[in-house]
């Protein structure tokens, strides 16, 4: 069992408050994680500038080279974690043991994080729209078209209040180091593994440890982090997103309500797209905000729902170490049951049909955890309450809705895949402000192109593009590159 301390600007600190993290299925102790109180975080943040100062000793190119090395340490190395060492397979086992995600999915998520670290130059090139990163490093410079531009960092660090349920989200904060911003993370209670392993990999690759602070803890720690970091991300439910809406200091990531829209021009060929629809619902145990929770079409909806139910309904619960395991356990007591009860309530509405009912009970309760098996629901109207729901397992509604009403009816959609060749409708989809990521054509909602911004551009969040004027003399010096 590992003892995992708080990290205060690179230095371990063992708290008197410790959270016992146990295996979700067996109860076996996996780690003792020190818990931070809010005051510690607020006090440490007084020294946040030192993290940026330390990173500014390195050029962005140098940092990105180190991130590429960190990618290897993260994916393949045995690195120090707390008072022990951790190999990649131990990482996958531990992450699976505490989050309920099957081990093979934990390994796949490692690859995703490693890929992002390795391809940081490409990712930042696309996020900055080709800006020379030295301009971000210095705060100003001359763009390729010969114009002086200035980008001012709005915070010396990026804070993040991380979730327990979806290891995929870690890709969002990884670019901070390359942007010369320190990292202040509150790991999810069941998922301390990625932040700690990532920090170890960074340090092994030569990033100074004093640019990292990791504060496991409760809600008070999260609130203190958000209050004291000038720029921070938080992952939570709809209420969290609403709470921070319009707050420039906080980028809130919530449920995705991602959807696939089938245009009238292609919907008669719906069978062609069944694979990509099923993949969008089921991959990664349906846990992500990018997993599809709604399939919308004007006709054939019952047949589509039937076909999806036949495909996903029989999926059984398998042990987390089984390479074929496709479902993740709910490790928080009572959560799966509470979700199923909410679904059952919604199923009572007229025009709502549970299509996976004939494949056995969806709620599978075990001694220490529970599972929800894939659930497909048909809605004959977009007004059904369940048509706007998203849950943390392979769950989707197939909703009958005329194409001309679809954009207005779908509500907020993080990833919208529109399968259509109707140019007029595509124009409307492009203009639809309720769709964040738009895929035009048969692209699974879960297939992200890392060169595209996700739920807000990180550069826009962390830097302010402002005016900066230079005297003629200074401009000449800048042009000469002195």
């Amino acid at each position, binding site marked *: 069992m590992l003892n995992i301390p708080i990290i205060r600007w690179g230095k371990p600190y063992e708290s008197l408050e410790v959270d016992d993290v146990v295996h979700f299925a067996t109860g076996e102790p996996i780690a003792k994680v020190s818990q931070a109180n809010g005051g510690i975080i607020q*006090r440490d943040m007084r020294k946040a500038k030192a993290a940026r100062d330390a990173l500014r000793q390195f050029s962005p190119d140098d940092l990105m080279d180190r991130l590429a090395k960190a990618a290897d340490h993260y994916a393949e190395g045995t690195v120090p974690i707390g008072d022990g060492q951790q190999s990649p397979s131990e990482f996958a086992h531990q992450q699976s043991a505490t989050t309920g995600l099957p081990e093979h999915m934990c390994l796949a998520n490692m690859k995703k994080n490693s890929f992002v670290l390795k391809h940081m130059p490409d990712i930042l090139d696309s996020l900055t729209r080709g800006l020379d990163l030295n301009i971000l490093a210095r705060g100003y410079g001359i763009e390729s078209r010969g114009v002086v531009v200035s980008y001012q960092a709005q915070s010396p660090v990026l804070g993040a209040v991380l979730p327990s349920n979806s290891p995929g989200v870690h890709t969002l904060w990884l670019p901070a180091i390359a942007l010369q911003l320190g990292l202040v993370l509150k790991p999810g209670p069941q998922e301390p593994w990625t932040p700690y392993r990532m920090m170890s990999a960074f340090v092994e690759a030569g990033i100074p440890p004093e640019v990292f602070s990791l504060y496991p803890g409760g809600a008070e720690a999260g609130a203190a982090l958000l209050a004291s970091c000038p720029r921070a991300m938080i992952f939570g439910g709809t209420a969290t997103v609403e709470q921070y809406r319009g707050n420039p200091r906080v980028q809130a990531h919530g449920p995705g309500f991602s959807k696939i829209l089938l245009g009238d021009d292609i919907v008669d060929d719906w069978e062609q797209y069944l694979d990509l629809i099923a993949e969008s619902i089921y991959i990664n145990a349906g846990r992500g905000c990018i997993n599809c929770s709604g399939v919308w079409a004007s006709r054939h909806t019952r047949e589509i729902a039937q076909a999806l139910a036949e495909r996903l309904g029989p999926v059984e619960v398998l042990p987390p170490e089984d390479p074929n395991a496709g479902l993740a356990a709910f490790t928080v007591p009572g959560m799966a049951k509470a979700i199923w009860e909410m679904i059952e309530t919604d199923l009572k509405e007229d025009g709502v049909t549970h299509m996976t009912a004939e494949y056995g009970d969806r709620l599978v309760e075990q001694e220490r955890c529970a599972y929800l098996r894939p659930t497909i629901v048909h809605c004959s109207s977009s007004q059904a309450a369940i048509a706007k729901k998203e849950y943390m397992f392979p769950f989707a509604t197939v909703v009958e809705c005329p194409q001309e009403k679809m954009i207005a009816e779908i509500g907020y959609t993080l990833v919208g895949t529109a399968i259509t060749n109707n140019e007029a409708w595509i124009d409307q989809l492009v203009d639809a402000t309720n769709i964040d990521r738009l895929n035009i054509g048969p692209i699974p909602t879960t297939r992200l192109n890392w060169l595209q911004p996700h739920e807000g551009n990180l550069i826009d969040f962390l830097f302010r593009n402002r005016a900066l004027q230079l005297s003629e003399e200074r401009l000449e010096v800048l042009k000469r590159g002195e």
Partner: protein
Amino acid sequence: MPMSESSAQSAAGASLEDRQKAAREQLDAHTYEIVQWHFHESTGCPFWLEKKRELKFDPLTEVKGFDDLKKFPLFEDDWLRGGPVRRWVPKAYADKPIYVFETGGTTGVPKSRVVIEDHWIDYELFSHTLPDEYFPKGSNWLMLGPSGPRRLRLAVEHLAQYRGGICFCIDLDPRWVVKLIKKGWMEHLEAYKQHCIDQALTILNAGHDIRCMFATPKLLDALALALEEQGTSIPEIGITGIFSGGTEFTPQWTRYFVEEMLGGPPEESGVYMTPTYGNTLMGLACSKPVTAEEKYKITYYAPQPRAVTEVVDFKDPNQLVGYGETGRVKLTTLTKEFFVPGFLERDEGEREPPYEAFPWDGVSGVRPYHALAASTTVGVY
């Protein structure tokens, strides 16, 4: 409070076992006296005299000691909501000036407790546990806590006066704070906290020679950070004694605050901080001295025999748990002004053995009762 009076006093110098026995005898005698008072027609309050008719036993003849209080049903704090509030005033005190203190009330009717002098007595007893070196007699106090219809505000002021000082207070409406949290208006919450801290800073910087203070842990934290921002600190501004309270007062928070905000234990920093535990129903339990050697463990002892804290089985509130075991905190209040025969707090903790200063049971690790805490998180993701 530490044994310093009546029968307990005669046990001074005796073994812990003898002192425990004396304390228990004192508690039994006190219980008898209090029950006689509250259930006698000439002295009792209308509420208990009315309640007596519902009981299947006669408190006047069948309650002879503390254990007999188990015959009463558990006290329900909802009984304290709404009027007429005079039903809680003992007949013997009908002509005395009456205070009413409220608890809760963010939404709906708050719980009200009538008080005549209990808050003075409780805090005078507490005063005797404070070390004069760090809480100098005659020094002025800052009350950095809730104002309004709260017992705490007047009690702290009385404590300062009892010790020969003057108490400076701030305006702080805790009901608004709860509303801000419920609404998720965190920026407003932060601004309100800052408003409270600004008031405290103004008082501290106004030349009133304040040496002692009460503060909730959150406000104390915020005050210390604000002083740091001004380039000073709690010790530098002249504070030498702090008392605070609440379940947020955890060992880790205490360690952080002592080590990082005060600059070390009292003998190094010159500042003594003591946690307390209590509420409007019970009064004030004080803590065994908190030290680094004991990993900042916080153990509270009620001011027996005026109030008793027990740690009881989660399923059977009449069954004490073993020493070191976890259970729910049960309060009993036994004063002539107020009688609470067993009330289950919203907290849990571990039962602690008696020790020299407090020869009766204590409770450590006080935190919100897990069953109530869990019910608020299920279904959220």
